[in-house]
């Protein structure tokens, strides 16, 4: 098959995408306004348009728990859940089986297949980190998608290494001696990129064109791809259900959640807000940061702004560095 560059494959307009059947059935029990199912649906829109059947390995977490409560499943694709910490290892096995059965002529279907591992930030940044790193390093042909809602939401808002500094969680709550989580969030896409894999991206469902374009590239990538997706959690963030997309947009427009990709070692920021909004705009819509708006904590907001700036500058430097001529 002739190699077609991902950039040459255009996704049809939104209207056209509605012609394909929904692969994530309703009736799942994710919270009203959950960001994760929006991400999954947008991914399916891409897979449908490109003619891929997705085979999923889902880490324990909100999506897993809510979409497959026996005897119901919301999935219209092959889907497997193994445990919390091993989605990447599980998909490694599925992908290896695919290769083996293909070689031996025992595949039950000849459809175009892509393997997706899906996990929340708990199953990706923390407990599943070793399994993820192993699978990326081994170079399996799969896409790992993390729906990052910045805490263990399935079990009731416990902090993770994806939780931002000063967020209020149940395991590092705000109190007389505490302002919430004392550490900054781990920069996981950067860590994934350090594996030297062909494709890494950070996305937000609010910027669906960007998300779809990146998922398209991930699907067309041979070898491992990693996507970190901003996943609003109204319950855990103490935000309004209907404001999920608004908050997602603000995360991008404040540079809190930069949209970028690393394609074969070249870093590219895919959306550069002309006038980035101050971080307050993003924080104030979420109850988890409420305590920062007390007058005595104004410096903490400044600190968060500085961290945003630091990462943004770092990304810009990486972009400049990896795209130099010669």
């Amino acid at each position, binding site marked *: 098959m002739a190699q077609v560059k991902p950039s040459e494959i255009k996704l049809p307009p939104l209207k056209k995408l509605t*012609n394909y059947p929904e692969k994530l*059935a309703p*009736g799942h029990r994710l919270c009203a306004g959950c960001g994760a199912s*929006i991400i999954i649906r947008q991914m399916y*829109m891409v897979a449908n348009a490109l003619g891929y059947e997705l085979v999923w390995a889902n880490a324990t977490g909100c999506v897993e728990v809510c979409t497959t409560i026996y*005897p119901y499943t*919301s999935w219209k694709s092959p889907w497997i859940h193994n445990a919390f910490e091993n989605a990447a290892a599980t998909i490694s096995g599925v992908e290896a089986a695919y290769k083996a059965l293909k070689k031996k002529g025992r595949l039950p279907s000849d459809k175009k297949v892509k393997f997706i591992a899906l996990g929340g930030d708990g199953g990706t940044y923390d407990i599943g980190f070793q399994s993820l790193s192993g699978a990326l390093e081994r170079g399996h042909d799969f896409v790992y998608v993390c729906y990052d809602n910045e805490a263990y939401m399935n079990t009731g808002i416990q902090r993770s290494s994806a939780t931002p500094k000063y967020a209020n969680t149940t395991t590092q709550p705000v109190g007389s001696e505490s302002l919430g989580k004392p550490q900054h969030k781990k920069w996981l896409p950067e860590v994934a990129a350090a594996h030297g894999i062909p494709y890494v991206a950070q996305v937000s469902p609010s910027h669906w064109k960007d998300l779809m374009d990146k998922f398209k590239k991930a699907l067309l990538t041979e070898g491992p791809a990693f996507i970190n997706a901003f996943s609003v959690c109204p319950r855990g963030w103490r935000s309004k259900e209907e404001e999920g997309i608004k908050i997602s947009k603000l995360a991008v427009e404040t540079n809190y959640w930069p949209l970028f990709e690393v394609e074969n070692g070249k870093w590219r920021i895919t959306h550069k807000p002309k006038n980035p909004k101050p971080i307050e705009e993003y924080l104030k819509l979420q109850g988890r940061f409420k305590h920062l708006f007390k007058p005595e904590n104004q410096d903490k907001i400044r600190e968060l702004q500085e961290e945003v700036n630091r990462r943004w500058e770092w990304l810009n430097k990486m972009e400049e560095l990896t795209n130099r001529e010669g």
Partner: protein
Amino acid sequence: MNGKSWREMPIGAVIPEPGSSEKYNTGEWRAWRPVFEAEKCVNCMICWVFCPDSCILVKEEKMVGVDYDHCKGCGICAHECPTNALKMKPEYLFREED
């Protein structure tokens, strides 16, 4: 309740029926209902692309309504609709009619 004998259930808790959650009615959860006014709709599909519950009903590339059996009433569709073709109204207004 499941209620089935262990002898009748598929082994290993495999679910061989894809998308069976459609039988589970999450519409019961709704406190607010998105009400669709077709005449205001420009079929931009913004509601469709953002719906977390696959509840925006589209036929032949036209938005035709909301799947109330499953819509949980999060309100994202109404909030994001650029033409106010969807509006959130309290569910009790409709439940009494049922």
